């Protein structure tokens, strides 16, 4: 009821000439007031919880700010601290290591899986099962794998102990922590990426493969010479998405290793969280967030540029 009365007044107010005579979509000419009304919530949300925080984040990165007191402007102080902060550079390296493992392993496995799903014409149910890990939270992923990889009772380590006589400390040793976390990350996103790539494969016409087969190309040759170049746009997208999400990895790290042992798996987002909510050093945490953002933007931009350069090559 409320809506209809409001609607009527609005219509009366906005459509000055009665729309009956106008038989064109130009009847929409006076839509502006209603359009602004409809986008008002989204605009407000954008301004208050996106634009304003972004600007405030920039401002905070030039201040010393401990939440309870007002921010104090210290110019480039935080940035100077950043350059001399060994832990920051260490966690940057850890993050890059994690991202590299996640991307290389993740893309390789999901690409091969997608191609096999496609070539063997496996049913849609199997594709559906593949996305199961994508549906559950990072926390559930972290919990079930820390149980399966538990040094004493975890099924994986029970098997490893039977074979080698010694369990592997997947989360507890400096060497294994990051690869294990990358493995979890790949496990969670692999099916999703495979389905994405699969959708791309379906757009490649079958005649191309028939032509390839007539020319005597083997499956492997067709994969390298036909599938990969034709899939390039979608592969680039999957890589970019994986890079962006892996750079910001947090939940599986926080639930399993908390950055340990001895900072071995302290990814950037973990360090930012520690600084902000462990030491309440919000100004410095904002500076690191900004650094992470600039890094992400640069990497994404470089990837897209490289992808475009290659594209003109193959077409």
């Amino acid at each position, binding site marked *: 009821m409320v*809506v209809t009365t*409001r*609607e*009527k007044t*609005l*219509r009366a107010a906005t459509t000055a000439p009665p729309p009956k005579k106008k038989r064109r*979509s130009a*009847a*929409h000419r006076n*839509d502006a007031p*209603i*359009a602004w009304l*409809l*986008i008002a*919530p*989204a*605009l407000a*949300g*954008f301004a*208050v*919880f*996106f634009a*304003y*925080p*972004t600007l*405030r*984040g920039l401002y*905070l990165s030039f201040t010393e700010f401990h939440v309870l007191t007002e921010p104090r402007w210290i110019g480039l102080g935080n940035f100077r601290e950043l350059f001399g902060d060994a832990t920051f550079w260490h966690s940057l390296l850890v993050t890059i290591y994690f991202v590299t493992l996640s991307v290389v392993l993740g893309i390789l496995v999901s690409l091969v899986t997608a191609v*096999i799903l496609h070539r*063997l014409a*496996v049913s*849609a149910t199997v594709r559906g*099962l*593949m996305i*199961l*890990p994508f*549906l*559950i*939270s*990072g*926390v*559930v992923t972290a919990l*079930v794998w820390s*149980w399966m990889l538990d040094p004493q*009772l975890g099924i994986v380590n029970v098997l490893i102990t039977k074979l080698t006589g010694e369990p592997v400390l997947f989360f507890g040793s400096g060497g294994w922590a990051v690869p294990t976390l990358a493995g979890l990350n790949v*496990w969670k996103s*692999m099916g999703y990426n495979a*389905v*994405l790539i699969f*959708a791309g494969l379906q757009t490649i016409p079958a005649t191309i493969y028939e032509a390839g087969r007539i020319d005597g190309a083997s*499956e492997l040759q067709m994969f390298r010479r036909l599938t990969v170049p034709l899939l390039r746009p979608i592969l680039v997208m999957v890589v970019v998405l994986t890079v*962006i999400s892996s750079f910001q990895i947090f*939940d599986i790290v*926080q639930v399993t290793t908390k950055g340990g042992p001895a900072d071995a798996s302290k990814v950037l*987002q973990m360090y*930012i969280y520690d600084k902000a909510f462990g030491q309440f050093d*919000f100004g410095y945490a904002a500076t690191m*967030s900004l650094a992470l*953002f600039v890094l*992400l933007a640069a990497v994404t931009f470089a990837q897209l540029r490289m992808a475009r350069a290659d594209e003109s090559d193959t077409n």
Partner: protein
Amino acid sequence: MRRRLSPGRVVAWAYLVIVLVVTIFPFYWIVRTALSNNYAMATDPSSLVPVDFTVGAFKRALGLASPAEAAAQGGSAASIDLLSALRNSIVYAVLLTICTVFFSALAAFAFARLRWKGRNAVFAVLLTALMVPQVLTLLPNFVLIKDLGLLNSFGGMILPTAFFSAFNIFFLRQFMLGLSNEIEEAAIIDGAGPLRVCFRIVLPMSAAPIATLALLTFINTWNDYLWPLLVTNDDTVRPLTLALAVFKQSSPQAALDWAGLMAATLVAALPMLLLFVAFGRRLVNSIGFTGLK
């Protein structure tokens, strides 16, 4: 139509089976552990079926087991208030999904079906949000929610994303742009105003993509961890993801009640698994769509 069984095909099938097992096995292992007796499990950790079958772990997770009963099955003193966490997750995910999808649909309609000055410019400005990752807005948004006095409330949890989602607006606008004009124009000729066109024609015609978006938003919110971690601090609003992590971190590593934890994990993952059974096909297709935009 029988295909030859070449060595390549055998290798391909073997690879696929391995990938499937690695993908599915952890889910089975959650069920197997949740139905085991936590004490007895230590004696036979590699058993593929539940050890000393019992539903005690679920009772513990739901707070239905007496302390003596819990202790007899190796439950720990740390408890997890699963039912209130479950309620919190439902409130959080349902509220946020309704708000963000509704407001995105309104905005998408204005951007796709109405003609007004500045439309493209405003749309371009809103789209910049797609390019800025969460890292940059996370801390300032926390400070904002704290200044508004909304810490540890559902309002604080949903407010930052309730009104505006660049992806949702973009996704729905793309769909609405593709709708034909005819029905809409017929309605306009019959005297319908833009709001009536929106609610009676365009939104119903967009039911399928709206449902897909609602599904994706619900899944993302249900699984969200970092934002609730920042803005909540006790059981009154804490969602399942957090309750699980807190339970794990507050128990001693050596004497962890894995059966109870896996039972709780199963409860947390169950709504997602049900959604998967009900809408699996739609989900797979929506992934394909987001990829091909």
